[in-house]
């Protein structure tokens, strides 16, 4: 029997098993030790491993990121948790100038094994500063790794891989994915960088969905199947290093690539993926490409504008349809109850 657990429990179990295995693993961040325990992802760790290894921090993202680096330089494996990705903007100096660069600028003398967990919010009025998916900032910088797992299985395996990695890893979670349930083996396992996952097969178009947009792409796959369009769906899982080969292989077959990002398109992950695919396939194969992502504005709070701000399964399916049907016909599927989005309900 497969064991089905929630994404948050998968994360908790990964941290628990790694802390059990290795006394150099520490978990800290604002409120990791409070009763809510970061949506339950750190629940019980304090009781099990004590306040030296599991502690809440002052509101000092800059210094605590610097401290995590110092711990890593001393041989510990800190996991620094941020309940919002937006808060990482307070820590950019340490992440970009120190964590990413230490190994290279000190000629390989040191390494920085640390994990930075951060969460992207969506809906229920989270708005401008609680909703940003900023991982492309970190993909830009050599020396950092970036991962954005979608399923509970990958959440556990990627967190274990990130903790065991000898480099700084930006571990990106989406608050709506926290509610996902799925099969997760109990024994520890690792989902390391290097392999994207094909989550649905198809021959007409390749959909790459990043983070929560992976879920919307899988729904779009079903809408498109109703129109007899076969959409191959790929989850990159690790954004840096990126397994571009799996995506290129798919596009070589389908000739169409739609990348749906959980962030803005300009200079974003979607732009990078399309650029890399085109560099490889130009001259070999005619390829149609398109990016979808957040509207190029600040995230609004009011529901009707917020709905228009995000791509969703139906708008993704419509874009894919337009790319596949060369006639230029436009089409938008009727909403199917069985494919509706999970609604996030506050308070947060």
């Amino acid at each position, binding site marked *: 029997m497969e064991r089905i657990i929630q994404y948050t429990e998968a994360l908790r179990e990964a941290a628990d098993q790694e802390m059990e295995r290795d006394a150099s693993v520490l978990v800290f961040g604002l409120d990791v030790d409070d009763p809510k325990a970061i949506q339950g992802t750190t629940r019980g760790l304090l009781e099990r491993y004590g306040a030296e290894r599991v502690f809440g921090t002052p509101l000092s993202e800059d*210094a605590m990121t*610097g*401290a995590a680096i110092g711990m890593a330089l001393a041989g510990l494996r800190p996991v620094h948790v941020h309940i919002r990705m937006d808060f990482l903007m307070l820590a950019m100096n340490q992440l970009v100038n120190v964590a990413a660069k230490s190994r290279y600028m000190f000629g390989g003398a040191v390494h920085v094994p640390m994990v930075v967990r951060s969460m992207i919010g969506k809906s229920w009025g989270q708005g401008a500063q609680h909703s940003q998916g900023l991982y492309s900032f970190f993909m830009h910088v050599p020396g950092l790794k970036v991962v954005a797992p979608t399923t509970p299985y990958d959440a556990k395996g990627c967190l274990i891989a990130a903790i065991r990695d000898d480099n700084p890893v930006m571990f990106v979670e989406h608050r709506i994915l926290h509610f996902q349930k799925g099969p997760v083996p109990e024994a520890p396992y690792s989902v390391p960088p290097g392999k994207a996952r094909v989550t649905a097969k198809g021959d007409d178009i390749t959909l790459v969905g990043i983070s929560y947009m992976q879920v919307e792409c899988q729904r779009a796959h079903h809408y498109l199947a109703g129109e007899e369009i076969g959409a191959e769906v790929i989850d990159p899982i690790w954004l840096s290093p990126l397994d571009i080969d799996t995506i290129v292989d798919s596009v070589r077959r389908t000739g169409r690539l739609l990348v749906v990002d959980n962030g803005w398109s300009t200079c974003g992950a979607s732009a990078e993926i399309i650029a890399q695919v085109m560099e490889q396939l130009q001259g070999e194969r005619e390829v149609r490409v398109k990016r979808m992502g957040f509207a190029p504005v600040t995230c609004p709070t009011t529901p009707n504008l917020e709905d228009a701000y995000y791509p969703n399964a139906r708008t993704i399916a419509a874009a894919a349809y337009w790319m596949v049907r060369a006639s230029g016909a436009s089409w938008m599927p009727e909403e199917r109850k069985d494919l509706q989005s999970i609604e996030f309900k506050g308070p947060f």
Partner: protein
Amino acid sequence: MAEFSFFPSTERKTAMYERIYRSLYRIRRVEERIAEVYPTDTIKSPVHLSIGQEAVSVGVCEALRPQDVVFGTYRSHALFLAKGGDLKAMIAELYGKVTGVARGKGGSMHMIDLKAGVMGTSAVVGTTVPNAVGYAYAVKYRRENRLVVSFLGDGGVDEGVFAESLNFAALKKLPIIFICENNGYAIHTHQRLRHPALNICDRAAVYGIPTERIENNETLRIHERVKSAVDAIENGGQGPYFFECMTYRWKEHVGPNEDYQLGYRSREEAEPWMRNDQVGVLGALVEESARKSIEQAVDAEIAEAFALAESDPFPAASELMADVYK
């Protein structure tokens, strides 16, 4: 001049003066040699010379044990050498050679020597302060018998991370000593134009950290006071400690020259510091023949280090892509 009641033996005192003089003289001569060589453009790295400020690094490091770890700033040639960093590898780094401390990929502002306990230094003001704090957290967590020293300048105090770092270090009672080298200037801007209150110790004291300001750039006084903090932590006491060491940079912010002609400061301001030159002050405490032999040995060591750096190879092209990730 401070006397050393805690070193009763004359022999030990003599040996210590000789050690300290050797360290001061060596740092001074290394940096003077860098300044001499600099116009030839063989050193491909911006250099922030410590000339005039050696007393702080030397006084502090004389109080440390080999297992203790230091974190520094972009102006860390003195710290690197005082803590026992490899001179040949340091000079090779300045020349961009593969034999350098960072295989020629870091330069003057990113000196590191793990064997000597010199953790990497940083070009961005204030950034190593929280790194040192995190390192001290690891030391405490592992119950190790060592401590961490975080060197920063009066400019580092301006950064928000300074306050955040001191707060956390004090909250967790970490085995760390902060050394603020106050040379009065952040590049060309005096502390008066940056701080409404000039006593930096007051800022550390609000976190409950024991603080002390040490005036006049006196090596032996710095050594004595920091040694007392090291001893207190070694004997089971708790950190952190904070010292503000008043000092003065003789050369320009970056580069080998003087800059009194720029007008942001005057030679008159510098002169009292120069009269109290610690290389001369400590040299006078060392018997002449011993002093001569120290100087000869150091001069020969420096000549060899520069000659090696000249002849050592540059990194191979394949080094460009090496060490991005482990």
